[in-house]
């Protein structure tokens, strides 16, 4: 299983839901998991993370086991059984 954690606007959109488990399959990537996530939700959620072309928004943070996928293979990063994917729509502060 893969655990998806929701933060920021994503959690607010999901009425406070903090996480979700999705089944893992050989060959799963971060991008594929986002598609699976969208498929199980009734509202458009992944649009807060990626645009209509499947490109990450500036400021989107996706951490795979606490490592930013921008420093891995972005949406093509391979995901393994038991991994944790933390999803943060763009946010900032100081």
């Amino acid at each position, binding site marked *: 299983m893969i655990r998806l954690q929701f*933060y*920021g*606007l994503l*959690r*607010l959109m999901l009425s*406070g839901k*903090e996480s979700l488990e999705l089944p893992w399959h050989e060959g799963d990537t971060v991008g594929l998991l986002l598609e699976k996530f969208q498929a199980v939700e009734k509202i458009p959620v992944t649009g*807060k993370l990626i645009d209509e072309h499947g490109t990450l*928004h*500036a*400021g*989107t*943070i996706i*951490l795979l*086991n*606490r*490592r*930013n996928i*921008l*420093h891995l293979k972005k949406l093509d990063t391979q995901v393994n059984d038991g991994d944790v994917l*933390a999803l*943060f*729509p*763009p*946010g*900032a*502060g*100081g």
Partner: protein
Amino acid sequence: MGNGWHGKLLRVNLSEKICTIEALNMDWAAAYIGGRGLATKYLTEEIDPTTDALGTDNKLIFATGPLTGTYGAANGRYMVVTKSPLTGTVASSNSGGYFPCELKYSGFDMIIFEGKAEQPLYLKIHNQHAELADAAHLWGKTTDETEDQIRAEFHGDAKVACIGPAGENLVRFACIINDKHRAAGRSGVGAVMGSKNLKAIAVRGTGGVTTANPSGFREAARETLKMLRTHPVTSEGLPALGTAILVNIINQSGALPTNNSQFGTFDKAESISGERLVQTYLKRNKGCMGCVIACARVTKLTGSRFTGSGEGPEYETLWSLGATCGISDMAAIVKASYLCDEYGMDTITIGSTVACAMELYQRGLITEDEVGMPLNFGDADVMVKLVEMTGKGEGFGNKIGLGSYRLADSYGVPELSMTVKKQEFPAYDGRAIQGMGLEYATSNRGACHVRGYLVSPEILGLPEKLDPQAIEGKAAWAKAFQDVTALVDSAGVCLFTTFSIGVPQVTRLLNAATGSNHTDDQMMVAGDRIWNMERLFNLKAGITPAQDTLPKRILSEPLPDGPMKGIVSRLPEMLPEYYSVRGWGTDGIPTAVKLQQLGLV
């Protein structure tokens, strides 16, 4: 004058109780932009940098920028500039709210306070009329009470900036609070105000501010507003969750200093997160004057053992009164945040100082008898109590009021103070985010996140994503961010706009407002000039380049946990490159050539 300026400076001699109006030095305004830069120029020219920060000879300057009070990019900021009693460096603290625009609309661009009042006074400004009034009846009152009283006796629509009891008691990190909840927060500017027996400034301004090129300004403003309203950070993230959105981001990144930076993650971070604040005490968001972002949190404590209402806490406060004290009690943090506003104290420094005291207690250096209670990490009630004692100047609170460096030093362990130049780190570990470590070490007012917010590229990926552990190129990034921030602070624009807009937009607004025709590069040079001027002030004040460093913990104790486990700061590798990109000598001193290029000699 019709160019973003009124061309007027109000000089207030508190010793003589005299207010005089002077012409603003427009040559300086052109070279140093305004706000932070222009006020620092005046400070540099008018005080000896070695002077006692709490002595009569220090001056206290309230400065707007040429964009303060205009529209287009959250243009409602002012700066308080003085010599800091916490660090001995130049202090320049920024705040928003409604007071800055009201000051501008009164017809004054800047106020310089000098001398010291014999008895507590406050300044009343009604457009071009300024007078000092007795403040004996206000002394001892909280910032809330002070503002309410002044509005009742002076003008119901007046905007007020004031100190609370902490400023009166010369707490080294006392701040100046305006509009009840906005703070010129860092470096102890409130203590300087208290040392002058100046309780408050109340302003009623009914004029406006005009620009040199109104149609050009309208166009520039339209562009910036569109960018602010469409960028996901300024149009969605900040309004919905405020700065508190960062708690989970920074914790997951392994950069949330915990238990006085003994750890880099907090296992209860979720309890003090922005998401949790939305679910508990948040009532609505709120903006400063003319701001389309509206990141402030209006909150109220309900269903808790604590009571109260107000604004905040911000991310920094959730960390300082939370994670770094090992505290996960959201209600206690919210309450302590309210108390900091009411007594007028910097939440970052007080939280970090309480955390330092907790580590001193953990090590057996502070005893229960001294404090009057156990001082364990994670004890929320003790934290709230200490905040109150510090604000009131009671018991062990007087030691907390010195800041963590002087506290730890008094026990012979200054290395346990998480400070640079005696000012406490904000909420990012300098090991986990290498560029921030460099930025803390080189900041002109001691450790600070709003002098060059490298968290933006290193963690948030804005404007582009950098590896927080890489050091290559970080020196140039630090310089660029420091110079841009100096420009933005001087213009009178909120720093948060720069998540969406950049130097081209600020330059365009400035040109249209002031009637100039500067290039982006020239504006970056202006930022560089301001940075170097601040550096020169500090050098003359006796702050040597040897203080461009970090605590031993950050340099040599590897992070024990989280995704950055095993990492220390690589500052020694970055600092020489930083000096080089600044055009300074290897000794960290600006070269004669550099100063000549900037027009500083």
